[in-house]
């Protein structure tokens, strides 16, 4: 296989690994945050506004780590810089 094929194979496998491993941590964290927020809501229903708002903010911040992995996976598949490098190396 030439260099471009190798780059494509490695990119696709790495993108899958990135998104799968990178979503495990945020998934656990979001579940934990949601369950803790539910416990807090059950104990203090009066503070539901603050708890819900804080929950949304923290969920989005936890989710952003998964989003970083998603961005990396998208870059690997659609905008891989090494593809152009290999094409330039093969062309001249």
């Amino acid at each position, binding site marked *: 296989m030439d260099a471009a094929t190798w780059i494509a194979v490695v990119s696709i496998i790495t993108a899958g690994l990135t998104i799968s491993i990178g979503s495990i941590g945020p998934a656990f964290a979001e579940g934990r945050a949601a369950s803790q927020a539910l416990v807090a809501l059950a104990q203090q229903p009066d503070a539901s506004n603050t708890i819900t708002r804080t929950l949304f*903010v923290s969920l989005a911040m936890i989710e952003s780590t998964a989003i*970083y992995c998603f961005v990396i996976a*998208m870059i690997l598949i*659609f905008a891989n810089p090494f593809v152009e490098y290999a094409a330039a190396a093969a062309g001249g």
Partner: protein
Amino acid sequence: MDINPDTWILLDWNGWHINATIAFTWGVMAVLVVASWLITARLSDGENVSRWQVMLEVIVTGIRDQIAEVGTETPGRYLPFIGTLFLFIATANILTIIPGYRPPTGSLSTTSALAICVLIAVPLFSITQQGLGSYLRGYLRPSPFMLPFNILAEATRTIALAVRLYGNVMSGTVIAGILLSIAPFFFPVLMQLLGLLTGLIQAYIFAVLAMVYIASASRAGPHHTHDPAPEPSRNEGE
């Protein structure tokens, strides 16, 4: 698939490339400016208040209350900057209900520009409030050994701000595009609805995080913190 609105050239005029990001940013700016101008041209404090004025008042007082909850005594100082950030991002994300529109926040250049605005605004607000020396001493807290880490934190949180907003908006567009080729008609609509919700939440988070950074840099004393992650909850508890 085209995941970047920067490469979508709408207009090519004498070598000036007007891409989708620039055009739609102008569109969002025009919507915001014309709407605010139309509404504020007919403000009244009498009995007959137009419903548009009520809407504007709700938005402005809501942003003001949120800024005050982050822990500053003078929300009016930060209202123009934070409010502009929130309104621009929220409008840019909500306008995705218009067919053919691509949110300019789905481009890394837009979100980087917004994050750099925050990076510049943090020292500006802090220096005008407590002076240059006090601001620079903030980098030496809690001990001078933390100086490189504090400088590093400035850079990483700017990158994190930019990539968070970009990734969320871009992922909505990309997932809708992928689903269009797999399961058309129904699931893309659901993902678009979810994208509207995420877009609003991301606008809120961007504004709140910018306010938290400004507040933590402007606040002297033992409450001074540099860790960006747990700050919203901690500040809202105060």
